[in-house]
Structures are given as C-alpha cells and as structure tokens.
C-alpha cells in the first residue's frame, strides 16, 4: 500500500514491469560474468598463496643448503698410550697435555719435518689438549692404558673434508696448504677421519673456533629470557585485561589506556631496548647481558599482545555464562575466575605462546642491553651474562671464519624449529580446547 502511495505522488506514471526472463541471453551473460569473477578471485588467492609459499621455500631452502653442513663435524680419532706418557699424576690439571696430545697424533703419521709438524698440529682444534685433559680428569682409570679420543678437526680442515676447499687453486690462495692436504689424505686413508653428527652444535657454547662453537649457551639464555618474560607478562597481562574488560568503568580515562595499549603493541622493539638500557641498566643498575633484564624488556613488548588477546578471549565468552553465574549470586570475581577466565584460557594460552614466539625471535632490544656478548658457557641463572638464539645468530653472522657461515644458517634453522614447535603447540591448544558456542 505504502509503495503505491509513493509512486502515485511522483509526476511520471509507473511503467509496467516486464516479467523476468531468466533464460534470456542477457541474463545468461550476466551469470557467466559473475561466475568468471568467482573464478578470478579464487585464482588471485591461489597466486597469493603460491607467492607466500614460494618465498618461504626459498628462505628455508637456502638456509638448509648453507646450513646442513654445520650439522656434521669432521673428527679425527686418535689413540693415546698413557702408560708411557709423561704426566704428573698428582697434578693432572697442570700436566703438559699439549705434548701428550701431540705425541699421540704424531703416531698416526710418519716422521715429519719441523714445518710439517706445525702444519699438522694446526689441523686439529687448538683446544684438543684440554678436551683430553677434561676427559681424563673425569675418568682417571683411562690413565692406566690406552684410550681413543675423537677430536674435532680445525675449521679449514673441516671445510676441506666437506669438499669446500678447491685443491686445484694455487697453494697461497687457500687456507689449507699442500702439506695439510697430504696429511689429511693420509689420515683419511687410515680411517681416522669421520664425520659424525655435530652434537657440539647443541651441547657446546660459543667459541672463537667454529669447530667448537655451539648453541647451548644461546638456547639456555633464550630459555631463561622467555621464562622471565612469561612470568612477568602473563600474570600482569591477564590481570590488566581482566580489570579493563570486567571491572573498569568505561570512561575517557580507560579509553585512553586502551588506545595506549594498542599503540604500545606497535612500538618498534629497538625502542624497548633503549628503554631497558636507560631504565633497567642505567637507573636500577641491573647487570648487563643478563637474561633477567632481557626478559623484562621482552615482557614489556609481549604485554600489549597478551592484554589484547586476553581481552578478546574474555569478550568471546558469551554473556549468558556471566549472567548464569551472577544470577545465582556469584560475586563478580567469582564469575570471572570460576567461569569466564577458565573458558577463555585456551585462547589466552594460544595468544601468549604466539607472543612468546615473537619475543624469542626478537634481536634489537637484546643487542642494546648487551646480550650479544661473547660468552663461552651457559648462564647458571637469570642474573648471569648470557646470549640468546637471535643474538648468537647475529654474532656468528659477523664472524669471519668460514665455518661460521654454515653455523649461522644452522642456528637460524634451530631458531625456526623452536618457533615452529611453539606455534604448533599454540595451534594444538586452540584446536583441542577451543569451545564453540
């Protein structure tokens, strides 16, 4: 009725509407165009995914290609007879292990000239003597007879063993001279050279020598960092989110807080690093390079993420649950802690893990508080100087030795493996515990 009234009031009389002919050419064409648009959209999507996957493959591919060599290490097996060795059994620590080691390896090759000897000894890691010493101090019974040791070969020889040294080049253009090539082949022919999995990559700490450098310090440093980061940002973040979402009055002031939290999430990480440097190191006088300070800085970075995720999770719990609790006389905090928070926990955990994964890969703030120091043992706690995985990568990428090229890529792969597994846990948690309403 209303429609006729409006039409009737206008000047032109309404033209009679023809019935729709669904089979007409025009209609068919129109439908075809719409289907074509659907197909185009799907194609764009597939191209986009292909692009993203392609870049990911290039990244992982190149890293694996340069990094895979670092997962093995050329080792030499030597046999030492301690019964004849000159050592002071009452003062093992200060015995002349260097000579003992050198005598031991000399047995494997024939008579060597002075300069050949020098070339030969430099084929093994310069810490070989200490590796032997440490094993003997740990197990004195070895002293009574012969024992075999597997000693890492030095970086240039490792490169040679992995086929990365072109022996056709003139001798002065490569880091392995002809003597060493000859001696290496000799050792190899005897079966003394092996290339086992490089456990040192995971169980050693940083070293100036690539053959000894590993990630143990960086991994444990990152662990402490994340622990501090989690212990601070998780409770504080959840507390802040609960207050803002459930208790705070909605006014200008809380709006301002909300805007600031969202802005905080977008602040570049280097700024947090500078803040950590100025406040935690400068004012509070906390130790440099300590995971505690790094964790504090990363917690500041992760906090906004956790607050935002938690608020979203809390709002996604249907209000009927809140009303149900309040309706039987639960106080506000009981409604939140008995019902709403447990129900939103899976989402909160997922968000937190993703936030922590982000923190794990963060480099810039750690550089500013000195976590890129050269530290050769894993930290004993959160106040010991330490490195972290990303800063270790930074240090290695900066090192000139050839062996660090592969190790840098390998370290990146290890970091990526940690990130992927954390994100997998997040996805698992989401799928396992998420409740659909």
């Amino acid at each position: 009725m209303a429609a006729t009234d409006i039409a009737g009031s206008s000047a032109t009389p309404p033209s009679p509407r023809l019935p729709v002919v669904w089979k007409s050419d025009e209609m068919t064409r129109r439908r075809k165009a719409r289907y074509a648009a659907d197909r185009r959209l799907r194609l764009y999507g597939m191209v986009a995914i292909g692009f993203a996957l392609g870049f990911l493959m290039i990244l992982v591919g190149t890293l694996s290609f340069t990094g895979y060599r670092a997962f093995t290490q050329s080792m030499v097996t030597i046999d030492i007879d301690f019964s004849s060795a000159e050592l002071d059994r009452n003062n093992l620590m200060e015995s002349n292990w260097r000579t003992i080691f050198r005598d031991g390896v000399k047995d494997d090759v024939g008579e060597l000239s002075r300069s050949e000897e020098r070339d030969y000894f430099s084929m093994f890691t310069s810490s070989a003597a200490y590796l032997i010493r440490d094993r003997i101090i740990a197990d004195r019974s070895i002293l009574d007879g012969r024992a075999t040791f597997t000693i890492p070969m030095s970086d240039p020889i490792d490169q040679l063993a992995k086929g990365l040294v072109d022996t056709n080049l003139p001798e002065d253009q490569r880091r392995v001279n002809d003597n060493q090539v000859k001696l290496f082949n000799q050792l190899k022919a005897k079966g003394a050279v092996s290339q086992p999995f490089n456990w040192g990559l995971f169980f050693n700490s940083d070293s100036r020598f690539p053959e000894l450098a590993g990630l143990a310090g960086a991994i444990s440093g990152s662990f402490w960092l994340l622990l501090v980061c989690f212990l601070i940002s998780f409770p504080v973040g959840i507390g802040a989110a609960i207050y803002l979402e459930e208790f705070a009055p909605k006014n200008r002031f809380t709006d301002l807080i909300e805007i600031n939290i969202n802005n905080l999430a977008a602040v570049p990480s280097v700024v947090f690093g500078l803040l950590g440097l100025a406040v935690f190191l400068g004012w509070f006088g906390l130790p440099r390079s300590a995971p505690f300070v790094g964790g504090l800085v990363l917690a500041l970075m992760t906090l906004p993420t956790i607050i935002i995720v938690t608020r979203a999770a809390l709002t996604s719990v249907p209000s009927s649950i809140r009303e149900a609790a309040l309706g039987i006389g639960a106080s506000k905090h009981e409604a939140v802690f008995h019902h709403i928070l447990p129900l939103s926990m899976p989402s909160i955990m997922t968000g937190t893990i993703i936030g922590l994964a982000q923190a794990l890969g963060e480099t810039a703030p750690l550089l500013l508080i000195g976590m890129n120091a050269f530290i050769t043992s894993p930290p004993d706690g959160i106040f010991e100087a330490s490195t972290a995985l990303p800063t270790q990568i930074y240090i290695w990428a900066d090192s000139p030795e050839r062996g660090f090229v592969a190790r840098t890529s390998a370290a990146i792969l290890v970091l990526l493996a940690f990130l992927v597994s954390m994100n997998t846990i997040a996805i698992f948690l989401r799928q396992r515990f998420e409740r659909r309403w």
Partner: protein
Amino acid sequence: MNQMSEFAVEKAIGERMATTTSTSSGPAGGVKMAGKDVCVFYGEKQALFDVNLDIGAREVTALIGPSGCGKSTFLRCLNRMNDTIDIARIEGLITLDGNDVYDPGIDVVELRARVGMVFQKPNPFPKSIFENVAYGPRIHGIARNKTDMEEIVTSALKKAGLFEEVKDRLDEPGTGLSGGQQQRLCIARAIAVSPEVILMDEPCSALDPIATARIEELIDELRENYTIVIVTHSMQQAARVSQRTAFFHLGILVEEGATDVIFTSPREKRTQDYITGRFG
C-alpha cells in the same frame, strides 16, 4: 492500527497520564516483592515509565506484552541484573519483603541468592551436571560437607524434575543434555541455593512444545514453595501457569490483576487488543 495505538500511548506519556489499571485487589498471599514508580533508563532512552507492581508470595506472576515493552527490563530490576549494564539507570523503589533492594546497604550477592533467575536461553556452565547444581551452594557455603552437598544437588534435581533422567550421569557435561533438560538443569541450579523468588525470563522460548509443557508443569509445582515471576511471549502460557498477570506496553504497565480476570474481562482496550492477538 498498530501505529494508532502507539501514537495514543506516546501521547499518554507526554501528558504524564500513564496510570496502571488494577483489575482486582492485590495479591492473595501477601506481597513478596514490589515495584513502586520504577523508571529505567538505558542511557538517554527511557525503557520503563513509573511501573507500580506488587508480586504476590507463593504464586506465579506473568509479565506479558509485545517485544521491547520493558517486561524483561522490569524482571531484571528485581534481582539487580541490570547492574551489569553500564548505561542502565534505575529510579523508584523495588522492595523484597519491604526492604529496598537498591539500598546501598543491600548486599547484591545475597539478593541474587534469594532472588534466583532462569534465563531465556538455557545456559548451563560447561561443567558436569553435578557441578552445575553444586556451584551455587558451594560459593555460598550452604553445604556442610560432601554428603550434604550431594543431598542438596539431588533434591534440587528432583524438584526440577530432572533427577530420574540424569541420575546415572551426574558427572557428564550439562551442555550435553537436550534443550528442555538444560533448562530444567538451570532451574535446579537456581533452586539449589534455596531462593525465595525465582525469576524466569521467557524460559520456554527456545524449547519445543513437549519440553515447554514439562517446564510449565514444573512451574506449577514450584509455586507451592517459591514466588515466581515469569516473562512470556505466549499468552496461552501466561494463562496456563500464572495466577496474576501484568501487561506491559511501550514501557508502561498497562494493566495488572488476577490472570482469569485479565484474560476474560480486561479493562483496558490495549490489553484486550493484545490478548486477542490484534497487535504484538
């Protein structure tokens, strides 16, 4: 026609002539709760206009009216559930046994324990059936020990007519029950804290006719021990379960009185129009 009556009502508000017609004398069993000049505002918008309504003890009061007429708003004032809405503001007086429930000295937790609520959509906690019922007594510290708690839960489930159906699976999630069972579970949950008044906000709107009949029977049984206020869209339901009926329209309590009188000889034309299905 609809527009006409709306216009008439607005005019009435404008002239501040909104008065309630009482069809008969007050509730038979004494007044349990009462609203006096209750106005509710959501921000700038006024949702209730000077509502005066007495709720009789141990009987069922039905609040009827078209959507958006303020009946749920009034119901939610009775146990202060409107407190959870930031922009809601309430004026006037609401009493429970003569005490103002909006008095600053009133403990809202105690009030909600005494005035329980059952919601439109069944909303059991995603916990076991037992836990659903036991939660209220637990937070209020009603049960003395484990056996006492089991007794409370069992008796609440029995009163809600659910016990026989769920007695073998009390530790299964309450959300796994059918809609009607879930709603009876919610009623059991409300009963478990031994309230004096039970508010029901369209408790059957999400249920099929059989489950609805079951709940209506239950309401009739519960009337012996509890004061019940039920909001309903269904005129038949109001006629079946209630002793007194209040008709709301556009935020005004148009008419209230004994249900049989309201349904057979309403004084107001609007009430009659609504009841006979001419609008709403």
